[in-house]
Structure formats: C-alpha cells, structure tokens
C-alpha cells in the first residue's frame, strides 16, 4: 500500500537562518489581514534571528518566538509557516475587549435586564500565542493544513515547561465584502478618527500608546451599538472559519475576549487542557519497510523530541506497545533513527 505522497514529503520544522529568503518570498504571497507576517525584510530578519535564538534556548522563554516552516522535502521548497510566541503583551500592552454581563434589576418594577458589556482589558497579558499561520495555496490539500497548524501542539506537549499556563490565538474578525468592519465603523472610528487599516497597522507595528490615548476607557454596553455591530462580536472572517475549527478541535475555546478593532474572537486554552497534552504519547521508533503500511492505518502526527531541530510529519502508521514503525523517508524527515523517542498524536480528535 502506498501512502499519500503529498503528505509524506512535507515536514514542519524549526526555522533556520538559511530560510530567510524563502520566508520573504512566502510573506509576499500572504496578502493583507495578517499583521504578523509582512514582506518587510528587516522585520523578517529580526524575527528569524529571534526564532533561531529561541530554538537554541538562548533567550528567556517569555521572549521567545518559535517560528516553524513547512518544507516539501521532495523539492526543498518552503510552502508554509506558523509560529508560537512565548508570551504576549510584555513589551507593549496587549489589549482586548472582554465581554462581561451586568444585570440591572428592579424588583419594584419587575424589570430584570441582563446586558452584555465590553471591558477594555489586558487580561491576556503573558499568554503564549499561536500566530502567523500561512500555507501556500498549492499545498492546501490532504493533511497539510492540519499538519501545519497542529504541529505546534506537539511542540507545546513536548516542552510544556517553556510555556505559561494560557495559550491564545487571535482570529481575524468579520468584514463586509468590501473589506470594511461594521464593528470598527460603529465603535473605534468614533474615538480614533482613522480608518481600520491604519489603526490595525499602527497596532501591529507595536505602536500601542495611541490605544491608551484614544480608546474609550469605560465599560460599554453592547446594547449601545447598532445591530450590525452587535452581531459581529466574536465572529471570524469567512476565510478564518476553517482555522478556528482546527483550533477548537485541539481544545481552544472562545471565552469572551475579542479584538478591540474588529471584534474578532480570541480563542484560548489552559495549556494543561489541550488535547495534545492529554492524548499525545511518546513512542520508540522502529524501522519499517514501506510494505508494512496499510491504508487502514490512521494518519498520525509524529514529532521528534529535539528543541533546536524540532520536526513534525503526518505519517500513516500506528503505535502499539509504545513503539512506532516509521519508513526511512519519515525517519529522515524527522531527523531521527530507530531507537529514538518520538511524540505521536492522532491527527484528528477522537472526542467530539
């Protein structure tokens, strides 16, 4: 039986300095909407430097930025990127709206109003963040998307001591067909007097003092907003819906935090509550000939256990008695040998 060749030739691995040019090429393909991966060579150079120092363990965990690339080993081409930031909001404040509830009640008038409120908050300060996910359109097939996104959970499961208790992911918020944001138009615009893209860009450049200067500080009742703005609170951009589902399968939840500009949801999880921490297991690598693989074997994610050269593949295999049979090609992609430990997890959650 042959395994899916597309799947089998792609590896997600820790970025290296030599990947800079290919990363720059990818960044030009990303398009708008991803503020953390812009085709700015100086910015990318700095980011790759930090990532390499992160994987080398040369900087403090809360300042690390683990940048992973997906390489098609059949061609050597970089086809995807994703990242985990060690902590957000420690250099510049990290703002969200938190949605809370206030009850206004009068027993005399028999009125009981349960109202949603928006609180400007920095509650998520210090959380680790999943970000910068991009997969080249040519490779949006098979298990590639899942491999790329979920590889990060195996990394966290392997190195949980490097992370704070909470993990988050910011999702791009709802936009109209013309790219405008109803939430911005009815809220932020009144206070910032600039258009959404400008505010988003300033914020992504780390120039956040304008938020402290201009943002309304007092809690807002959602009911003040017109329905068009209320409706999109916590809604993702249509292009982001699949990414959201993937993360939810891994144990992240929307807990009422949204972006202050477009009200896109923040997904969050306790690190200890991630599927990868409950379900991933270590296994010892055995050599296996291709003929041993059966198409009935599920696709599983397999990662090596090396911080500085972390690698993850999606393999069609199975584990038994804490051992796993991997083909030579898989072993090469993982930079591991028979007898080495690897961390494995089923590609899809078994639980609903």
């Amino acid at each position: 039986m042959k395994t899916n060749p597309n799947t089998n030739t792609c590896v997600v691995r820790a970025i290296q300095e030599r990947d800079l040019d290919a990363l720059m090429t990818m960044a030009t393909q990303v398009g708008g909407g991803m503020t953390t991966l812009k085709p700015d060579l100086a910015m990318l150079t700095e980011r790759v430097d930090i990532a390499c120092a992160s994987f080398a363990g040369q900087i403090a965990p809360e300042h690390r930025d683990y940048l992973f690339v997906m390489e098609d080993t059949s061609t050597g081409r970089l086809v995807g990127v994703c990242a985990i930031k060690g902590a957000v909001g420690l250099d510049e404040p990290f703002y969200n709206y938190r949605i809370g509830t206030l009850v206004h009640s009068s027993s005399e008038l028999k009125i009981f109003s349960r109202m949603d409120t928006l609180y400007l908050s920095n509650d998520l300060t210090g959380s680790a963040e999943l970000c910068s996910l991009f997969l080249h359109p040519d490779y949006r097939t098979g298990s590639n998307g899942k491999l790329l996104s979920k590889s990060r959970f195996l990394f966290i499961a392997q190195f949980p001591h490097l992370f704070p208790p909470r993990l988050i992911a910011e999702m791009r918020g709802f936009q109209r067909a013309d790219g405008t944001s109803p939430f911005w138009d009815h809220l932020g615009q009144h206070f910032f007097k600039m258009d959404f893209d400008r505010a988003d860009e300033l914020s992504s450049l780390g120039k956040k003092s304008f938020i402290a200067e201009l943002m309304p500080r007092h809690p807002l009742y959602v009911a003040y907003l017109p329905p068009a703005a209320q409706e999109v609170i916590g809604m993702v951009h249509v292009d982001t819906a699949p990414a959201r589902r993937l993360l939810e399968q891994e144990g992240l939840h929307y807990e009422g935090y949204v972006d202050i500009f477009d009200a896109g949801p923040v997904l969050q999880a306790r690190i200890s509550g991630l599927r990868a921490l409950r379900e991933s297991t270590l296994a010892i690598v055995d050599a296996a000939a291709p003929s041993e693989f059966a198409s009935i074997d599920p696709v599983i994610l397999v990662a090596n256990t090396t911080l500085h050269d972390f690698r993850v593949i999606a393999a069609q295999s199975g584990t038994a008695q804490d051992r796993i049979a991997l083909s030579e090609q898989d072993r090469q992609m993982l930079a591991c040998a028979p007898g080495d430990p690897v961390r494995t997890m089923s590609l899809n959650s078994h639980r609903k």
Partner: protein
Amino acid sequence: MTAPSTLLVRPVTEADIPALEALAAGATAGVHTLPKHRDAIERAVQRSIASFAARVDLPSEESYTFVLEDSATGRVIGSAALAAMAGINGTFFAFRNDVMQQVSRDLNISHSVHALTLCSGLTGHSQLSSFYVDGGDGIDEAAAALLSRARLLFAAIAPQRFGDRFFASLAGVTGSDGHSPFWEALGRKFFQIDFLEAERLIEGGRNRSLIIELMPHYPVYVPLLPGDAQAAMGQVHGEGELPLQILSDEGFEPDEFIDIFDGGPILQAHKHALRSFSAALSRRVAAADEQPASQSATVTYLVSTTSDNQFRAILFDAPALDLSDSIALSADARHRLQVVVGDTVKCVTL
C-alpha cells in the same frame, strides 16, 4: 404692555384641590411635572401647607406649591412648585455631560468626545418644578412670568428655607405620541418600557433607588448614540420654550446637566446670579393717590409681600423705582397683596 391687573400668586390651599385636578387634566404627559392624580395632588397640597407653616432654619423636606389666581374670577389658572432640596429621601440623579479630550501627539490627533455620567451633583440644590399655566386661551407671557418668578421672590425673602443654588429641569423633546428619541436610545435599553410608562411609574421623580438599579453605571459615550438622540440632548420641548425664556431672563443658564430620561436641559444658577435675589428692591407701600400721577412711562414690576407666611405676589405698573424709597400701589393691588400703606414689599422688574 400693561400688566394684567387681576392676577395673584399665593400659596396653595386645600380649597384649590379641585382646581388643581382640572389643571392636571390639561397637562401633557411626559412634559409637565405637576401631580396628576387626586391623591398625589392632595399630598402635594398638604406638604406645601405644612412647609409654609414650618419654622425653617435649614432647608430640608419642604416643598412649596404656588397657584396663579385670577382674582377677578377667583379661578386658579396655573400652579408651580419649589422644593427646598432636590432628591429628598434619596439622590437627585442627572446626566453630567463631560468632555473628554482625545489627544495623540505622535499621530497629531486631537478631538473631544462627550460622555454622559449618571451623577448626583444636584442633590440638595433647590428645585423649581411642576410649572403649568392653563393655555386654553393662549398663555399670557406676563402671567407665566409672574407665576414662575414669584417662587424666586419667595426664596429671596426667605433664603434660609433654600439652598444657595437653584435648578429647573425642563421637558425634553418628545413627539406628539410621547416618543422620546433620547429615551429610545438610552432609558429603554435598561427599563425595557415606553417613556410615558416609565414616567408614570416613577411619577416624574429623579430620586428613586430604582434609577441606580436600572440606569447605566458607566459613562455613556455620546458618539455611540443615534443621531436623533444626540440632537435631543439639552433641547427643550416646544411647551418648555416659554418657561425656558422666563428662567433665562431671571438668570438661569443651561449647564453641564441634562435629564436622565428625555435629555431635556437642566438650568442652573447660584442665587446671586438671579434677578430676584440681586436686583429686587425693598420698597415701602404708599397709596397710589399719595403721589401725583406720573407722566413718565411706567415699568411692570413683580411685587410681593415680604412675609414668608403671608406670601403673595402680583404684577403692577409703576414709574421706575430706582430713585424712590416707596411704591405707590392702588387700593386694588394693596388688597390683592393684603398689605397696607407703610408695609414693605419686594419689587423686581418683569
């Protein structure tokens, strides 16, 4: 213009209750704040009688109701009240209209945003309220001014009964159906009922604990309100224009406060800024025939007694009083005021 010569403002009496009921029937819900129902009217009258009778060193729960009577017919054609302290038994709530500067020097941004904050800063100030004149034949402006301002002449002759600051909340903009754009944008979201229903339940009060239970705890950013609600902020109802004019002439100014329900303007003044306090003259009563009839033009004065338990006020045309230490009142005027020659009266130009 000659002053209507039969009008009289005096404290309300029990005999006025049927007349007040008739007046209330003509008042517009949500606009006029006089009590509507027999029992509320009776309570207000009893409270007023007790208040005028009380010896007062410091203002407290007193509330004084005045009526405008046409002494020719004995008919009561208007009423108005003055509370010694707003918010008695609670807190008088209003929205304070704050300005917040939005400045980012880096980005060269500078503008201001208004925000409404529920606050209790008017608690304890003296409050003009319940002003109403029967407009069956069109309201006589001089009569309305007499009724409205007589309250302040009373305060001027009995300042120990009142605070140093006075305010009046004027009806805000509502449609003919009682629809209030300001209420729709704010109060309805918390009360979940119509404006008129809310005013009926709360009896027009702004001192009830249910306000703090229901109204927003945090400043309301004005740019988030719909345009019609923003436009209604501080705007007076059509029927409030005459009272607004009268109080403005007296020295009141719209300040930073608006009503929490309909967004109507709240006028405020320190007593020293009011003409009834600063520009009223004390004059000895003379008989009109003691002096030769003046050829010079006359001025219309509000003239009141100076006794706080026998308070009366009328309009009277007289030569300018600035250079005289007495005012010559006709026998009829003396009769309406129940004063005699030699008594002292307060006079202030209309």
